[in-house]
């Protein structure tokens, strides 16, 4: 079985801020927002991992995004963690151009947490009604 985590660590040695192996099948890697797209491309295209979902969380220090990938041959869940510190105007590069299955996931995070995905081809409401008030995001905690 291929050591995918080892390959990610090798390839992104300089970019990985923190590596955490919570258990043999739960791996967390911290990246800067700017490095996420390259890492996602490598993990999805070159290593053949499947995108399970993306979790967005409103934290006091910013919006945390977790890109959960599943490597089904070993049963590992590899989660890339990044923090968008500017809560007033959180931005990150969209991964939909790389993974078409991420379209709905990013649309949901956009409407519920207000994260702008640059380069997303179709950023519009998914779950909420079309005339939902602009700038209101249901999963924001509004800590400030």
């Amino acid at each position: 079985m291929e050591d995918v985590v080892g390959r990610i660590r090798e390839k992104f040695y300089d970019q990985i801020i923190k590596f955490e192996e919570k258990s043999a099948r739960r791996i967390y890697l911290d990246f800067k927002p700017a490095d996420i797209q390259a890492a996602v491309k490598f993990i999805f295209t070159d290593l053949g991992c499947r995108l399970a979902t993306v979790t967005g969380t409103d934290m006091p220090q910013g919006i945390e995004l977790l890109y959960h990938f599943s490597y089904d041959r070993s049963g590992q869940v590899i989660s890339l963690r990044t923090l968008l510190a500017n809560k007033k105007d959180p931005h990150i590069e969209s991964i939909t151009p790389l993974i078409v299955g991420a379209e709905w996931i990013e649309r949901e995070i956009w409407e519920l947490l207000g994260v702008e995905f640059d380069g997303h081809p179709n950023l519009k409401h998914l779950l909420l009604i079309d005339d939902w008030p602009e700038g209101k995001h249901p999963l924001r905690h509004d800590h400030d």
Partner: protein
Amino acid sequence: MSHKVVVPIGPYHPLQEEPEFFRLYVEGEKVVDIDIVIGYMHRGIEELSEHKHFDQIPYSVERICGICSSSHPYAYVLAVEDILGGEANVVPERALYIRTIVDELQRIHSHLLWLGLAGHFIGYNTVWMWAWKYREPVLDMFEMITGNRNHYGMCKVGGARRDIREEDVPVLKKALDDLLPAVDMFKGAVMDDPVIQARLKGIGILNKKQAIEWCAVGPTARAAGLNIDVRRDDPYGVYDRVSWNVIVENDGDIFCKTKVRILELYESINIIRQCLHNLPKGEIDANIKDIPAGVGIGRVEAPRGECFHYIKSDGTNSPIRHKIRAPSYMNVASNKVAAVGQTISDTTITLAAVDPCYCCTERVAVFKDKTDKKLMNGWDLIKLSQEKTKKLQERLNGGNK
């Protein structure tokens, strides 16, 4: 000259059991594009979880869906147990077996339900009636084990809520034995029937490459040749202690999706039999009191595919984030490629072939503004609806003048 016509299916449509909206763009009989609009079943369950005690959440997530109502609580407790050090290290043996039995029974009832609906969608109502007839004894088994036909309430953090009584085990074994001839019948009736083959073969194809691109899961992915199954890849319960096979087909059409589900019925019966045979004696609950701070991921192979839950805890008695990703969320989106290029008459079965569950797909969000007040209550929504109807009436009347 091309002439595009829009054919709406939904939001409320007699063919669909849940509200969702497909806008089909057709040229003649052929579907050339499709818009999928969801959001009609959005209830705010992710947000709700942040205000519930860890022990209350299985109740609310169980109600995400009435069909895979064991998968969501199971994935949730796995996520919480991931924070505590993993299911296998926390939960007593007997509870692992009970969880597995309930999870597999659910797969049988869900696949039979889908088979019936699929028969109904292609106008083959005999399959519908028979599939649902044989689903009833499965629901009776649920009633015997859990006390309920649909919402089982069996999962809790650290164990199972109810035990399986010793005197019930032979009755359950007998019910499984009785179910087997019915599954044989379906296998023959569906897989050898020329009418069903004519309606399902080569229809609604999602090939392997597309399944990877759309991140499809469950029978939808397995019918396209993707050999993935959480039960084997990331085992939970006692799936690594019983022998069973992952069913994989290669063509990716609806016939393959049907075949995968029917053959999985045999595997499920096989798994439950082994579990009942090996059911150990002992405690069923580890009596977990506190959940420490940390993050956990739990995933379960629901009848429709991988059900994914993520929990972030700060050490208090409720989570600060609970992310839920149901399998249909990935599979429904893939209809965009499966339905385009088909005729309208094949669209209904194509859209149904992923075994969609819109209740699962949509959850999240009760809105609060800065004053911590609800933005809209039920009455506000009624007023909004009345105003909209009034506007529509005015517009229609205006058009008549």
